[in-house]
């Protein structure tokens, strides 16, 4: 076999490689795009989940606007105070306000054992799609459907479907991005201040009698909590108790009074975050 063919081929390929490499090197100098090195640093500091809670197109988008000064260092909702500090340090400025972090809360206590289904649902396991078929198989038209769309959507893996058919949100992992709030077709997930632990775990605006007939843990609008509250923090509107978090002092009197147990202290309650995290 003629070795010259191999040598020729090697030379041609190698030569072409060298010429093109040189061209690329020159082009990269000529067409160099100035990038603020801060963008790269900020991008690394951000959580990188691309949850979109900030309103910008992903973490890259947010990093750019923060570097330009168009958004404050605390613009990352999911990051919280810790990441805001890091970003501020990169920018060489200080974070002004320190907000209490918010966490997602599922306002429903009616799991598999409490609420029956009114028909056999035999479709896609997705809450929104189930909701489209006769407004969902759950007898309660307000409560959790239990197909776990929130768990599937959570960019931080903070939501796990419990054995009771309700989502458990791990507050250690929750970054309050609000993706689950958006995704829930029944709108039962809200963001609440992290330091407030007393909540009404029900969304049903049905009359007390109707709630009783379908769910053991629902709010029946009896107003017992409203009467016992010394701080005017809890009111029954549309057959549903709601707590004003600004006025609530966490005295827990309503929790003791509630006949159905739908007002819960998150420490001991049904959705206990600590339980999931393994601290209780």
């Amino acid at each position, binding site marked *: 076999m003629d070795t010259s063919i191999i040598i020729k081929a090697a030379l041609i390929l190698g030569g072409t490689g060298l010429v093109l490499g040189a061209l690329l090197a020159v082009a990269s100098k000529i067409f160099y795009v100035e990038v603020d090195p801060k963008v790269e640093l900020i991008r690394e500091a951000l959580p990188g989940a691309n949850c979109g809670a900030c309103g910008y197109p992903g973490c890259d988008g947010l990093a750019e606007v923060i570097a330009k000064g168009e958004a404050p260092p605390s613009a990352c909702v999911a990051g919280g105070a810790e990441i805001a500090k890091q970003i501020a340090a990169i920018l060489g400025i200080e974070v002004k306000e320190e907000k209490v972090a918010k966490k997602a809360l599922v306002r429903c206590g009616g799991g598999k054992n409490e609420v029956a289904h009114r028909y056999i649902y035999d479709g896609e396991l997705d809450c929104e799609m189930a909701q*489209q078929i*006769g407004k969902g198989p759950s007898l309660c038209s307000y409560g959790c459907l239990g197909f776990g769309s929130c768990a599937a959507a959570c960019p931080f893996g903070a939501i796990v479907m419990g054995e009771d058919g309700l989502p458990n949100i791990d507050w250690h992992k929750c970054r309050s991005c609000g993706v689950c709030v958006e995704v829930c077709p029944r709108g039962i997930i809200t963001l609440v201040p992290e330091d407030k632990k007393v909540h009404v775990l029900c969304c049903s605006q049905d009359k007390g009698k109707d709630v009783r007939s379908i769910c053991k843990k629902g709010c029946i609008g009896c107003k017992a909590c409203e009467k016992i509250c010394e701080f005017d923090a809890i009111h029954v509107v549309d057959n549903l108790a709601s707590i004003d978090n600004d006025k609530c002092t966490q005295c827990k009197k309503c929790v003791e009074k509630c006949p159905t147990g739908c007002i819960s202290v998150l420490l001991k309650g049904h959705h206990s975050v600590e339980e999931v995290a393994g601290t209780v």
Partner: protein
Amino acid sequence: MKKELGKKPIEEASLPDEIVIPLSQNLGSPCKPLVEIKQRVLVGQKIGDSDGFVSAPVHSSVSGEVVAIEPRLSFSGDKVLSVIIAPDGNQETSSFSGFSESEAKDADKVRVAIREAGIVGLGGAAFPSHVKLSPPKDKPITDVIVNGCECEPYIAGDHRNILENAEIIIDGLKIIMRVLGAERGYIAIETNKIDAIHHMNNLVSSEGNMRVVPLSVKYPQGAEKQLIQVILDKEVPSGGIPCEVSALVHNVGTTIAISKAVREGKPLFERVLSVAGPGIKESKNLKVKIGTPVNHLIEECGGFKGEPGKVILGGPMTGFALFDLSVPIVKGTSGVVVFPREMTIASNPRACIRCGRCVQVCPVRIMPNFIGQYIEVGMIDRAEDADVMDCIECGLCGYVCPAQRPLIQLIRHAKAKIIADRKKGGS
């Protein structure tokens, strides 16, 4: 099954103990109640109306006393504000009068009469008829099609209507054509109703501008756009409505209601429907008062045969499966179809095997296989690019799918999302 039911004459259904008339039976803004609790109402009395253009009033179907006005479960699973009437059995009628021959020529008057009679499309979609009869000025209608295809399996209400009320259908078609200034009228009937075709042919032969079009038996031939394509050889553009190709389609039941509203002033308070299927003791074609609960009709037909598995309001392909049989019959209900437990299988969806059967059967020529996969992974925008909005939800793709994929559910989900997005963008 369908053929045998087509031989059974329409029977008058008995009055139930309670009539539930939802105040929202069609698209558009819901009606406001015009009656009070304990008030006595007569047959045909208007009990709810709305100011919206795309809406139709509702009328009492019985004489009796209003016992409650409260939200009641409707077939869609929603609780809809409804007027509940306890019939007294006398069926005392409120006085209504029709138009004279000269008045019936005034198109605007006829449109008002049709709206006041609360007429909506009786084929299933329940779209207010007076809106259909008011096309934009720059798009005149030249061809009117009366839809007697009834391509859904099991049901035969339209078939009986053609056999028993053919003269009224022809009169209704004449009224519609006059209102619109249309030149040609067609009565479309599938060839599995050969007796209806012959009967109609005999009556129509004297009319110069009308003809009966026999069509081969093929689902979903009775869908508006498909019918226009097969009869007029014109394709309604994507996202468009039939008036863009100068055509209009009305169901036979609607045509009868229009004729009765104009000639007699009779509002739409009863309709013909089939209670059918392998899960019912005796299938029947019934003339039913709007607001009759489904379970009353099932009793009327001798009850269930065996253990019921599925009760569907409408045809089996496009209807709604019910979970509560107390829901009332509404204007858009074309049938009640019952399947026994052994005929309803739990679906076991698997991955798409790319056989392409759904693509072959799709009447609007979209690709449900790809669209389904896009939606499954949340790529709604890709589904929109693949023309998911053209889907008429006939259900064929899911029916033929050997992997039992819930294609229609996925497509409906995507359509709802896209419509919601467009609304958000528009406001």
